[in-house]
């Protein structure tokens, strides 16, 4: 399994409590949009971010929050924040 696939699997575990679309969740991939494909509302997206912060020991700023729209962006933000540690 590639590093990216491994991270997507980790992300699936994090978003699972907040998703409202099972099909979108089962098929979750790099292009998956949190709001449109997983039906996560903006309030729960904050919880997803807080759980990501705990998991990877990183802190999101407002700029990262605004970019946090899909799986690809999430992976980029996580990798960037982890490398800055």
């Amino acid at each position, binding site marked *: 399994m590639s590093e990216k696939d491994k991270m997507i699997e980790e992300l699936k575990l994090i978003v699972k409590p907040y998703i409202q679309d099972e099909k979108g969740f089962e098929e979750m991939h790099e292009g998956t949009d949190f709001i449109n494909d997983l039906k996560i*509302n*903006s*309030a*729960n997206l*904050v*919880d997803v*971010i*807080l759980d990501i912060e705990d998991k990877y020991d990183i802190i*999101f700023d*407002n700029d990262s*929050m605004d970019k946090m729209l899909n799986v690809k962006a999430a992976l980029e933000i996580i990798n960037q924040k982890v490398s800055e540690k």
Partner: protein
Amino acid sequence: MMNLKEIIAKLPYEKPFLFVDDLIEVTENGISGTYTFHENHDFYKGHFKNNPVTPGVILTETMAQIGLVSFGIYLMNEAGESIDGIQIALTSTEIDFFKPVFSNEKVLVKSEKDYFRFNKLKCNVEMFNAKEELVCRGKIAGMIAGKTN
């Protein structure tokens, strides 16, 4: 820093849907306040027939107005945000109820901040009656935004 009267003045509610009489204390970690459910409230006519009991949704609303909205106004102001025309949307409630609240009872609401991040405020909120018995308790969350032009 805002005083407690100023917070109440900024609340976006009025009678018959204002459920805050007094705020007692507010800090960056929490807030407390009281409300007395006057027997003239219209909902007592129907909840229940000849047996006025305060509806759970109204208890939840009271917890939210004190524990989330009043607190949110304070926190937004402390963060340097504009609180004129503040907009607050309730996003989740998870409440357990323990005791009924009858008409003319005074309740105390205590709220503690779980977190306030990216405009989402989530709190652990408890309500007590005049005998200091726990009436209900739970988690309430909402999204807060200043006026958008």
